[in-house]
């Protein structure tokens, strides 16, 4: 870290004290950031994974309700889209962690959370379609 004395051989990838942590694309570059920042990055990634789980659960729930309440099968398309979105979001969580950790190690500005506007837009669209579907099927 800045301001601390350099330890011989502690630089990534060299000497007996080489950093062998994975992924090498992250730990093979730059300097160790403040551990608090790394942990905050970890918690952010976990929050994204939980969001992904919630979206998948909503998709499965929608399918279940559609069957139990005999709603139009068109809602299954929405449910499938939500499940797909959840799976993609989980991958984005891991890639986002990698990008942020790498940026911190290299002393670069943190990258913009790309998935956030997309998630919001898709969820708004899904909610609108759901409202239309429920409105159409109301007796």
């Amino acid at each position, binding site marked *: 870290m800045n301001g601390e004395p350099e330890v011989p051989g502690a630089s990534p990838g060299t000497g007996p004290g080489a950093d062998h942590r994975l992924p090498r694309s992250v730990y093979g570059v730059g300097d160790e950031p403040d551990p608090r920042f790394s942990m905050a990055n970890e918690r952010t990634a976990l929050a994204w994974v939980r969001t992904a789980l*919630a979206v998948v659960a909503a998709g499965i729930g929608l399918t279940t309700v559609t069957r139990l309440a005999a709603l139009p099968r068109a809602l*299954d398309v929405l449910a499938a889209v939500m*499940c797909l979105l959840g799976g993609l979001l989980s991958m984005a969580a891991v890639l986002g962690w990698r990008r942020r950790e790498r940026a911190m190690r290299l002393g670069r500005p943190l990258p913009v959370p790309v998935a956030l506007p997309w998630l919001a837009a898709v969820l708004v669209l899904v909610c609108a379609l759901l409202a239309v579907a429920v409105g159409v099927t109301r007796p």
Partner: protein
Amino acid sequence: MTDPGLQTERTALAWQRTGVTGSVVAGSALVAAGHLGAGWLVGLTALVAATSALAVGAAARGAGPVGAGGSPWGRLLAVAAIPVLVAPVGILLAVVS
């Protein structure tokens, strides 16, 4: 490290929350498949739920001091695999059942 924000504890709790959520979602998928799906789909979902439980276990085993000297990569991949595995089950439930 002086840690007035209890970062380590907060991070450990975040892992716990994610593990519990993953287990609940995988279990819910299994229940939904049991009600709605064909036999093969129930079997597939049971396999996914079992794998998810293993992933949660793997993430819990790797628990420990985080930050300098540790990498959350393996644990992160394990928990991130749960929605990736459960999502196809949800899609199959929507399309096939």
